[in-house]
């Protein structure tokens, strides 16, 4: 899906836990997620802390979309 959407000319950021698979399938912008059962959250955190974490991930993803990349890039912290 990542590749097909990009082929249509729309930049994509792939938020995913297993970064190596994302690299193997060929995503260009990759933001590492939390864990496979809960990529965008963390049930071990208090709700207010979890909300901060979620917002941070989404903002990082949006920022990566606006970043020019030259080949596959993993956006670490």
């Amino acid at each position, binding site marked *: 899906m990542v590749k097909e959407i990009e082929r249509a000319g729309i930049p994509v950021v792939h938020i995913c836990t297993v970064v190596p698979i994302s690299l193997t399938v060929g995503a260009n912008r990759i933001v590492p997620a939390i864990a496979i*059962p809960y990529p965008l959250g963390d049930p071990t955190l208090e709700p207010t802390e979890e909300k901060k974490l979620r917002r941070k991930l989404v903002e990082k993803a949006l920022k990566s979309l606006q970043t020019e990349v030259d080949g596959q890039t993993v956006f670490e912290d």
Partner: protein
Amino acid sequence: MHLELGKIKITDIQFGDLTKVEAGVLYVNKQELIDLIMEDDHIKGVSVELARPGEEVRITPVKDVIEPRVKVEGPGGIFPGVLNKVTTVGSGRTHVLSGAAVVTCGKIVGFQEGIIDMTGPGADYTPFSKLNNVCLVIEATEGLNQYEYEAAARMAGLKAASYLGQIGKDIQPDEIKVYETKPLLEQAVEYPNLPKVGYVYMLQTQGLLHDTYVYGVDAKKIVPTILYPTEIMDGAILSGNCVSACDKNTTYHHLNNPIIHDLYERHGKDINFMGIIITNENVYLADKERSSNWTAKFTKYLGLDGAIISQEGFGNPDTDLIMNCKKIEDEGVKTVIVTDEYAGRDGASQSLADADPKADAVVTGGNANEVIVLPPMKKVIGTLDYIDKIAGGFDGSLRPDGSIEAEIQVITGATNELGFNKMSAITY
């Protein structure tokens, strides 16, 4: 560590007044076994049924298969840390009721329980159709959540296998095999001219009812460590997982791991089998990185020339497999990976979710997406209620006449990734 494994061959199974083995026949006192299972107040009811090779019987939904074993000499008991004290096992003598098994089944806990057909085309795909099975159909008390039910069913199977195993304690086995692995430095010099080979044993630990236990520890909480191979023959590792039926390692698979047995067969002949590194398949990337770093570190630390790596399950564990392979190869240790495939019904899709050129020696247990039609059976042990829901089934899998059209994924052990089956592939 030195273990004598005594096999008592079981050729038939019957209910009887006394639980015993006589002339190869396992007699089971049904009420005694029911009373044992009903000691657990999480269980509302259990029915005990027998299934023999060749009978027109379908067992489903199957959770685990366990072989009856008993420690005869040496420290500890079978299933240490769970049924017995957490003593280090793997030495002395152990007796096995070979040809018999306990099969736990009953209402599903998730959607990944399986089918065992005792005859017909489905029987060819599961090794458990060749065994004399004591089936426990377990009914949970109301209000029990899925993981409590899974734990209760798991314990019931282990207790039943131990109860049956006990009767083998004073019986002279039909065959005794001796397995020995020495402490590392002694083992290394015993066969100095043979290549040193180890086994990297990946355990399913994704959680959410995909778990494995090592000496009673949930293996998602371990870091990779080293075991003597004989510890596994005494039940150091057991299945708590409900990953897809075709490629889960049941407790029976762990006890009889064919990679371990084959490595022992060649030990001292053309290889020096150094031991086992166990590792997990967790859902955090950092865990995957840490565990694969450590398996690679251990292969070097143990001085291995080569390693066999076996996977359990599929999907994201494909990444753990490839990480292990790549990092171990980077240490200069040759690898062979053992896996299975989800290549689509026509076999044309990519088989694994991850890949690397270093994974150039691969053994496959088969394509789990292949479709099979299983004819109706005269008797069902358990229930057909979940056939459409279990992994590999689809809406309409169960036909009105009781036949089943589904992917072989639904068959317990069909594409086992320890090679405990008949399917594979060769590239010319």
